[in-house]
């Protein structure tokens, strides 16, 4: 393995998949790849978020910027995002962000007429495009779905009014965190746990018990039948070395040996709801490929620079 480069074929095995949650194994690759995937998912998978707000009337207690900021942070369903254009390179509208290729318009009109406090929520946002709407959390979560509860933007009392127009655009998390589709993306190295059975047998049951309990997470357990220490969940191990320290303290170094497999990772992906977690992974891989293509292209086009001129340099840079 030392120094020798060889082609590997990374494999993905999906363990669990929900709309906003995914857990999968990534094998036969190394940390740089895994981390690149993580970073792309957080910062470079595009979504749509409100970017421009034109406030017509705002007599609420919150100031204009605050409301604009809150609107920006509302996740919008962004399946369209990959096929949309960035408003800065939209040819159709010269980048003023007001055309169907690069933007979606929202309207919000709310006025409190009663003595009861009116909650202005993301449900009050009217979209010009039915595919881009504020994420609805009620159906997926098992809560009381009879009440449509959106994300609260502001609360109004009698006589207060909020009227605005907002333009949502495509963007990436690198520019602003509101465009990040990921709530959390994390990975861990798959642990390999070996129990030295001979040494373990020398322990009394109490010692085994205290050994098992030394880990804050439930990695080991005692088999009720054979009274042997078994590994129940190796992935619960957090690399905190607590069991190793315990073994040392019991005077039995080498009781367990734990290695991190250098080439397999367990990913946990949580989405904000803007795009499905599975889609987020696929998009991230797409984007990673595009990035690599740009590198490959740069090699090809250096010689052809006089032919392509600025375009080649642009492609390499992009």
């Amino acid at each position, binding site marked *: 393995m030392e120094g020798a480069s060889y082609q590997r074929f990374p494999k993905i095995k999906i363990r669990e998949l929900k709309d906003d949650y995914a857990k999968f194994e990534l094998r036969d690759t190394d*940390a*740089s790849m*895994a*981390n*690149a995937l*993580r*970073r792309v998912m*957080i*910062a470079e998978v595009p979504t749509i978020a409100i970017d421009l707000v034109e*406030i017509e009337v*705002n007599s609420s*207690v919150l*100031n*204009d*910027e*605050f409301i604009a*900021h809150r609107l920006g*942070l509302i996740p919008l369903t962004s399946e369209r995002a990959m096929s949309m254009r960035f408003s800065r390179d939209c040819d159709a509208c010269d980048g003023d962000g007001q055309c169907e290729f690069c933007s979606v318009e929202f309207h919000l009109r709310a006025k409190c007429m009663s003595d009861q406090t009116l909650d202005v929520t993301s449900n009050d946002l009217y979209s010009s495009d039915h595919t881009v709407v504020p994420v609805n959390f009620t159906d997926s979560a098992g809560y009381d779905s009879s009440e449509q509860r959106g994300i609260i933007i502001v609360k109004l009392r009698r006589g207060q009014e909020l009227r605005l127009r907002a333009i949502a655009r495509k963007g990436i*998390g*690198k520019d*602003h*965190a*509101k465009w*990040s589709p990921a709530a*959390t*993306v*994390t*990975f*861990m*190295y798959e642990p390999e746990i070996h129990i030295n059975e001979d040494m373990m047998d020398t322990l009394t049951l109490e010692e085994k018990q205290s050994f098992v309990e030394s880990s*804050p*997470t*439930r990695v080991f357990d005692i088999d009720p039948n054979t009274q042997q220490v078994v590994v129940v969940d190796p992935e*619960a191990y*957090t*690399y*905190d*070395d*607590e069991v190793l320290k315990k073994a040392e303290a019991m005077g039995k170094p080498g009781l367990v040996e734990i290695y*991190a497999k250098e080439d397999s990772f367990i990913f*946990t992906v*949580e989405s904000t709801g803007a795009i499905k977690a599975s889609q987020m992974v696929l998009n991230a891989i797409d984007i990673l490929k595009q990035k690599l293509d740009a590198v490959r292209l740069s090699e090809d086009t250096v010689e052809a620079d006089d032919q392509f001129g600025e375009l080649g340099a642009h492609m390499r840079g992009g």
Partner: protein
Amino acid sequence: MEKISPKQIGAAIENLLKTGRLVTQTGLDLQQRAGFTVQAERLNYLRFISFFRSVHRGASFAGLRTTSVRKLLPESWGFLCPVHTPDGEPCGLLNHMTCTCRITSYYNSQGIIRDFFKIRMSILNVLVGVGMTTSWPKVDHDGPPQALPVLLDGVIGSLSTSEADKVVAHLRNLKVSDSSVIPDDLEVGYVPLSLGGTYPGLYLFTSPSRFIRPVRNISIPSSDEKDIELIGPFEQVFMEIKCPDGGDGGRSTTFPATHEELLPTAMLSVVANLTPWSDHNQSPRNMYQCQMAKQTMAFSLQALHSRADQKLYHLQTPQTPIVRTKTYTKYCLDNYPSGTNAIVAVLAYTGYDMEDAMILNKSSVERGMCHGQIYQTETIDLCEGKSKSDRGQRIFKREHSDKAISSFVDSDGLPYIGQVIHGGEPYCSTINQVTNAKRTYSRKGSEMAIVDYVSVDTKNKNHLQKVNIRFRHPRNPVIGDKFSSRHGQKGVCSQLWPDIDMPFSGVTGMRPDLIINPHAFPSRMTIAMLLESVAAKGGSLHGKFVDATPFSDSVKGADGKTQESESLVDELGSMLRARGFNYHGVEVLYSGVYGTELTCEIFIGPVYYQRLRHMVSDKYQVRATGQVDQITRQPIKGRKRGGGIRFGEMERDSMLAHGAAYLLHDRLHTCSDYHIADVCSLCGSILTTAIVQPQKRAVREIGGLPPARAPKKVMCHACQTSKGMETVAMPYVFRYLAAELAAMNIKMTLQLSSGAGA
């Protein structure tokens, strides 16, 4: 006295309240003339209430060389907070009352003025009842040791010494009891007989404006809160008060404790009481925290939208602290929250957290962490015109024809609400109805502001005379802004790293909001900050607030609970363990840049962070070229006027030490008051040279070329010739020096020569 009209007195008092200065010829035998009032700033709630609980010893003591006035003496223990005093010059002179300390008042609890004569008479009756003999003129009295003088607000009587203990106990009993014979804030200063001690006697005070604080009188059989006695500083020194930790405090059995402190935290001020587990911190850190809590950008008030304060700092997204003391709940400080529970990782990451710098998570900031605004109000009062004739003629208006300012100012002369106004742009316009002269008010400086609100004075029905225009300055965190935890650990934001570059936890995927350097801890010994981190982590995992009242273990002991209970660290650690986290609050983190495991386990957890009001946007100073001083032609100073920062002697020395002579020349001369002077080499003067106006003669125009400029001709007035004229580069102040010297009849001559060293 007759000469002074009541109106004058009113004006003088008003002036005193406004400026804090006494205008007097005699000095009134007061030790200071200024500083009698301070303005209660509403920077945040804690600062505001601290103004009403602070006690200043007097400006005259500030200059004193001795430190004795600054010490916390036994009589002020429990009345003045030992922690809440600034460090440095006013240390120990500007004190704050403890949270239990009160001041006796002229008014009773119903707000009615108390009849002190009646109170004294009823006390006198009680005293006579227990055997005090009132003093009559020309009657011989026994002095101590047989009899004890009794002074009730200065009225003298005497009492048999043997009776004294019983009388004092009786008085204290009456003080506590409901009967209104004796007011509950009576100070019973009993100075017992002693050798070489204070002159013995029974000194009773009923007067207002005294410090009092509650303690428990344990000599009275306890019956639901009926044993709380209010004591004063004078009597405290001669009383036996037990601390609630259960020990006897080194007290001998001959003087058993008669009183007991209510709470160990009663000796701290409100602000000092808010520091979680302050008993685990090095004491100066708690003092720093008291200062910094008062400079925090927070919720200063609730009715922000209808206020017209000069300057208001406002935190947009505050949170309630997870780890809090009982005082926090008691004073309902959730109404005025002052910080954010930031996830703090303690590690050296990228080196941008050296020397008390801290790295903020850019994505967290983008999601709203520590966002804030400054509200600033400009008042425009047309009645305040300098000339009387001008008064009443000006109105707020913009002429319809005035297109230049129509995008900023509405036709009523006032700005549009929500309008963004950059530096130098107008926001208000007035017109003189008689002369038709218009005046526009423009924003000073280069900073952008947003018009938040315009309020008008409607007292004058005819037309508007006074308006308040409130501006809003956005102040979201940027590099250079100051933050602090609640443990005197302040730091400056040095970098805003994006989420992906921050280290992350493999288990939870959490990225810290903030990174601080581990070197912030060993020398400062703020253990409570570490405890707070662990406790807040446990608290958030269990979904509950954690009580961090200092000295709470000593209270438990008094309750009779077993003191064998686990230590604080054990308690917090097991909370973490129960949720599968490390007992010590550390976690395995992975580098956000490489994805590899960091070598060490990282201490990470939520810590309540305050945003301090010192922000770069209000302080940065930079200049390339700009205004210069009239006399010296050197750059002016002052941030407001666009001046530079002085490149002083020490900076000059450092340049010289580096051998950067050319740079020095550039800074001190070329970029400053570079001047080319004409010098007469014949008489050596630079002052007598003058430009001679060339005679007007028709310059023949050569086709296509611009008219040739006549060469500048300079001549010396003293020598009446222009023969020896030379140009020399010199600082302009040199010419100024020559002029100043000439004014003193000193002639300065320059000897010119060409070539170096000649």
